[in-house]
């Protein structure tokens, strides 16, 4: 786990933002937004579901345009900061092969008061879904594979 091999320094200036092939450790994402001036922290975890449109899912394979996705994450943080008063913003998205139950995406936001953290976290995950160059391929039980129907990428 990258979380263990890269120890986290408390008091870092920014939350983690990265695209990674390795398993996501939610505790590390959470720790990266800790801030003494924050009174609330909200985290969202996206996980691989075992069913899709009534069919049993064996796993997912994510493809990503990594450099562009990491740049898009920076743009999302800027846009969060224009809208709400937040302390730190973390966004981590995995790619490669994932099994049912594994974390595919984590978003964490800390703020002085909870309302800003809830709204900013919701906005960040919704924006990640529509604006990051990421694609998922579903592997169904029985061996059928297909790209999940997506939405046209927007800024």
């Amino acid at each position: 786990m990258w979380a263990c091999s890269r120890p986290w320094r408390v008091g870092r200036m920014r939350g983690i933002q990265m695209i990674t092939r390795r398993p996501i450790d939610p505790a590390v994402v959470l720790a990266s937004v800790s801030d003494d001036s924050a009174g609330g922290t909200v985290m969202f975890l996206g996980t691989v579901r075992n069913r899709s449109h009534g069919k049993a899912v064996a796993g997912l394979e994510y493809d990503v345009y990594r450099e562009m996705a990491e740049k898009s994450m920076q743009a999302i943080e800027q846009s969060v900061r224009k809208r709400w008063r937040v302390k730190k913003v973390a966004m981590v998205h995995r790619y490669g092969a994932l099994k049912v139950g594994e974390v595919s995406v984590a978003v964490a936001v800390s703020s002085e008061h909870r309302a800003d953290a809830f709204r900013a976290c919701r906005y960040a995950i919704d924006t990640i879904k529509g604006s990051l160059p990421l694609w998922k391929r579903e592997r169904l039980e029985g061996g059928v594979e297909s790209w999940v129907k997506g939405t046209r990428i927007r800024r």
Partner: protein
Amino acid sequence: MRVKVLYFAAARDAADSRGETFVLPDRSSVGDLSAEICRAHPAMKAMSRSVRFSVNLELVETARALRESDVVGVLPPVAGG
């Protein structure tokens, strides 16, 4: 001029390639490149209306003019999260 094209997800399947270089007349646009890509890979035609393009990591419209050495991403509809 020469531009580098990168294919992702369903576009990679349609082009049967991760990426390749195209040689285009000067002052070509992203739309011109898109037409060239469809000529080279007829399987791309079916998705050409839903695809968007990036130039040097930035999302662009098809009217965008290309320059020597630009890196163009061919981006099918996205499904992250």
